[in-house]
């Protein structure tokens, strides 16, 4: 027998989500949304239980999780940094911001810093094209960001950590 170890909170979260959606396989994406929202990410064990509860294969669940960029199997940093890579932001220099964040944080896009403070991701059009290029840290939006400001943005959060 294979055992899947998980915290009681995670188990309850999955159970609640699945039961709210009547254990329906076609509600998988909604269930994953709910679990990720509560747990922050979707570790393998969580996907295993979801598969069990919905009586579907875990390969299929992972097939879905890995298909959609919104779902993550890595815990996000305390301060998730997202750079808008919509066209409007791109033509206004978003690429330079990505380079600069990568350089400053020494991580690649899709990674989290070792101390778990920052994670870096790109997203497609936040819809604030008037403020391009856009950087989001958590829910906070920074508009018309220049490469030079990158350092300041990072240190703003580093300070608050101390």
């Amino acid at each position, binding site marked *: 027998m294979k055992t899947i170890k998980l915290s009681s909170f995670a188990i309850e979260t999955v159970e609640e989500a699945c039961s709210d959606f009547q254990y329906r396989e076609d509600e998988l994406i909604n269930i994953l949304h709910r679990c990720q929202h509560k747990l922050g990410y979707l570790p393998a064990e969580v996907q295993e239980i979801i598969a069990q509860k919905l009586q579907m294969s875990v390969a299929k669940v992972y097939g879905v999780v890995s298909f959609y960029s919104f779902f993550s199997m890595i815990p996000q940093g305390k301060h998730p940094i997202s750079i808008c890579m919509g066209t409007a932001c791109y033509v206004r220099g978003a690429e330079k911001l990505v380079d600069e964040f990568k350089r400053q944080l020494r991580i690649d896009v899709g990674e989290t810093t070792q101390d778990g403070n920052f994670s870096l991701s790109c997203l497609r059009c*936040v*819809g*604030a*094209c*008037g*403020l391009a290029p*856009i950087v989001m840290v958590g829910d906070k*939006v920074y*508009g018309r960001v220049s490469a030079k400001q990158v350092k300041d943005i990072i240190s703003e959060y580093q300070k608050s950590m101390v």
Partner: protein
Amino acid sequence: MTKVKNLEELVKLRNKLKDKIQVRTITEGSDLIARVRVAMGTCGIASGAKETFEALIAEAERLNMKVLITTTGCMGACYAEPTVEVTLPNQDPIVFGEVDRKRAVEIINEYIIKGKLIDGVVPQNHQSI
């Protein structure tokens, strides 16, 4: 809220509401001194429309003025967010752009009270059906 039973009732409801809230200018006899709409789409909120909205309410309350302040969707002028539309009695609505807390207070004190425009008016160059 009660259910609208048929088309006739819906028409009646519309006519009633039209008088009550639809008016873009403020009808005579109303004790409202201005109607304010804050564009609160994602772009507006990203630019700080929530703070603007709060600042407008706080200032109106501080001055104890009867101003109707509501939220609305995107007005389309993303380059000038946050945008705020102000309608004074018997006048065309004016849209102000880049309204931060400071300018929100200014709009109430200068435009709504004194009728003076402040810089940064966003001309409305569209017709709506």
